[in-house]
């Protein structure tokens, strides 16, 4: 399921940090690394995970790569969450239609 990859990408605090910064404006790897307490190779690795999850994309500007947020990358996760709550609330609503439960011994 696509949203699993999104959840994995979002499960790391540094990656969430990167997304927060990219929301403000696009950044190069170097700019991100300068502001984060992790090495540049580590930032590159995090960006790779985010790219594979469809959450960020990069454009080439000469020799630089500039990363930006890919907002539509969160859509599979949102769609999953929406259908999840449809199902949970549907079950909740149907519980009022049932006859009262008999007391059951534990």
């Amino acid at each position, binding site marked *: 399921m696509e949203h699993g990859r999104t*959840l994995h990408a*979002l*499960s790391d*605090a540094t990656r*969430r*940090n990167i*997304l*927060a*910064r*990219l*929301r*403000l404006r696009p950044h190069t790897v170097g700019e991100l690394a300068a502001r984060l307490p992790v090495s540049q190779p580590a930032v590159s690795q995090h960006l790779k995970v985010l790219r594979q999850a469809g959450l960020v994309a990069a454009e080439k500007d000469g020799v630089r790569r500039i990363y930006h*947020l890919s*907002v539509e990358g*969160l859509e599979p996760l*949102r769609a999953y*969450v*929406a259908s*999840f*709550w*449809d*199902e*949970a*609330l*549907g*079950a*909740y*609503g*149907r*519980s*009022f239609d049932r006859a009262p*439960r008999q007391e059951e011994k534990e």
Partner: protein
Amino acid sequence: MIEPVVKEIWVGAGVEDAFRRFTGEIADWWPTEQHSVSGEACRDVRFEGSVGGRILEEADDGQVHPWGTVTAWEPPGRVVFTWHPGREPDTAQSVEVEFSAQDGGTRVRLTHTGWERFGDSAAEMRGEYDTGWTFVLSRYAGATA
């Protein structure tokens, strides 16, 4: 940037009953086979009714899988909890459920948020990026930016 997920349902019961059914009586209706960590092996779901109360499932083998923690407990009108079933707590989003009398029954409105913390300009202005629990909890404790 990212809209909350909002769902509404009307139930033919009073507000107190609707609140209690959602929380204390969650085991009576939650579809555990489809939506739990342990699936068919899920034995129980519990919703502890207080701030700091846990929402969790218990499997047949006795293992407990936390789903979230209550951050606001205001029966019968409102409950808010963090949400991270099968995940680490620091990846939690937040779910708010509101119950209000409507048309002889209760309108239940569920709002699943926490997406926007991935780009909170207020955090930028504070000069920090608090991406953990305290960020989620601070939204409901009325902390100022």
